[in-house]
């Protein structure tokens, strides 16, 4: 009798049981997220206000509360923080449109049927495998070696590189192209290897997006007499617009994790400047998130959601 009453009191309705099951599935992640992720973010905030000293011998830790001294130091007296931060953000903003355009272009190319498509796809996704920091140096060196042929010394590479590039710059300058446009294009050409390397995942995402466009839309466009060019702009681009946003987020995050500013933060804490390192991480992340929010907001206004 007693137990039966207890049972009745704790009996949950269907919805509550469902909620409990749902929580049981996400539980490991939820614990980890709260303990490690949120915990570490809070710690990061704390560290940015502290000066931490760790005794090298005993490993004991000593915290001194210094208010906003670390922020002041980072923005006024640190030698390279502001420069590295601006250059990292600028690099990211320059690479972003290039990577998006390039990966969309390649996805459109690879989405058609042609001979050897499987092989070409396998090659195009190779950069995902090779994007390792461990072998990064070797790959960069090999790229330099292969693009300049037998030139073996760095001086030689620089020479052959600058001669040809400056010639073409002058050529286009004589055609009265605006210098800012010219610089951007030249910069993009110089970065082509890094852009190709940085767009493996984006190509995959765009191919998946292209595959998910219903074929009936293309049939309608054909019946209405649209040319291939019009179909691209009126069907394909609007349909992949939401995925452009996804790719923008992925690209910005990817560029940020490999940027100099993250390397600087890691370098700083390895030199025992813990508080300063926390400030670097915090500032750069906040700035990146703000930029990301702005871009996504602007793109979202133009996006069209099919479903």
């Amino acid at each position, binding site marked *: 009798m007693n137990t039966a009453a207890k049972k009745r009191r704790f009996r949950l309705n269907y919805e509550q049981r469902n909620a409990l099951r749902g*929580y049981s599935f996400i539980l490991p992640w939820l614990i980890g997220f709260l303990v*490690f992720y949120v915990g570490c973010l809070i710690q990061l905030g704390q560290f940015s206000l502290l000066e931490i000293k760790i005794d090298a011998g005993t490993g004991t830790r000593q915290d001194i509360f210094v208010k906003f001294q670390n922020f002041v130091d980072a923005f006024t007296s640190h030698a390279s923080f502001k420069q590295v931060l601006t250059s990292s953000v600028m690099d990211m903003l320059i690479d972003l449109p290039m990577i998006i355009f390039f990966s969309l272009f390649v996805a459109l190319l690879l989405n058609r049927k042609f001979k050897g498509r499987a092989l070409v796809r396998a090659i195009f996704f190779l950069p995902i495998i090779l994007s390792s920091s*461990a*072998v990064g140096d070797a790959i960069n060196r090999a790229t330099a070696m292969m693009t300049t042929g037998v030139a073996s010394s760095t001086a030689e590479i620089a020479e052959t590189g600058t001669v040809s590039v400056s010639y073409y710059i002058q050529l286009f300058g004589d055609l009265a192209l605006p210098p800012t446009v010219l610089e951007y294009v030249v910069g993009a050409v110089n970065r082509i290897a890094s852009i190709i390397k940085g767009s493996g995942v984006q190509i995959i995402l765009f191919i998946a997006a292209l595959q998910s466009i219903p074929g009936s839309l293309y049939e309608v466009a054909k019946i209405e007499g649209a040319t291939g060019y019009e179909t691209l702009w009126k069907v394909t681009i609007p349909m992949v617009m939401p995925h452009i946003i996804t790719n923008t*987020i992925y690209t910005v995050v990817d560029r940020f994790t490999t940027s100099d500013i993250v390397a600087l933060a890691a370098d700083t804490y390895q030199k025992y400047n813990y508080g300063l390192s926390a400030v670097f*991480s915090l500032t750069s992340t906040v700035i990146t998130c703000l930029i990301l929010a702005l871009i996504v907001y602007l793109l979202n206004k133009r996006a069209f959601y099919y479903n």
Partner: protein
Amino acid sequence: MVYVRKKTEELRKIRASALYLDRKSKALNTVKGFLLGLFRAAVIIGISYVILAPVIGIVSSSFFSTQDSINPMVFTIPISPTIERYTMAIKYMDYLPILGRTLLYTGGVTLLQLLICSMAGYGFARYNFPLKKLWFGCIVVMIVVPLNTIQFPLYMTFRYFGIGSHVTNLHKTAWPTFILTAFGCGLKSGLYIYIFTQFFRGLPKEIEEAALVDGANSWYTYFRIMMPNASPAIITVAVFSIVWQYNDAFFANTFNMPATLLITRKLDSLVDVIANAERINSLRELQLYFDAGVVLVLIPVVVIYIILQRRFIEGVERSGIVG
């Protein structure tokens, strides 16, 4: 004169006839198609070269003998190829045992990722619970704010791991990675959860309803019915996870993981070790050993990728990775 006029008239008629126009447009189309194909082939071959060039460069120079490396006439194809670089690299990297350990580590982490991330994804896709929107927003936050941001707090967390006075130093072991992955905070876990969520959302609900009617509980449904149906998403996540975990330097550096556990860490010290043990001063020659080491390190992931790539790309297309 009349004859000429007649002929011109005939010619005009022929030109205006449907058959002629049809042929003309067909010919134009073939030319257009051919030019487009040529353009596409040029672009594809060009980009493929940019991607493959460094790989070709590394592989070829790893076979260079010392004479080849000094000879300015030698480019890409060695005159007197040697496999000495490989024997040395295998010997000094302790290749097979360490590779085995690295693969075990990578495989273990990947299995954990698959389990935890698919569970979370299934929970988000199929159950309604309070605060669901907030938690899913947190997944997006995890994708947007990378682990690099909290690198230093993570370092401290595992440097002094524990509660109260029971504190241990977990650095130089594989524990931090396993603990973080088991709690859904591993390398790019947010992205994997997102992929699984999108995939499970796309599966028809009828299967589970049938299972429910037949009396299967939610865990049985998840393990025995949903997971076998989720192979596209599993393959996608598995390939990403294996490749990124194997190549990862973030956890390795943050937690100072030992070179006896990770082949990529061993590669970092390879040049110094060979320079010391074999008394080699020439940087150019040391570089050749390093190239051989890079090839050895990359072989396993390339093999895994080649085996899984077809299913991987199909999986990406079918797994609704893009939502």
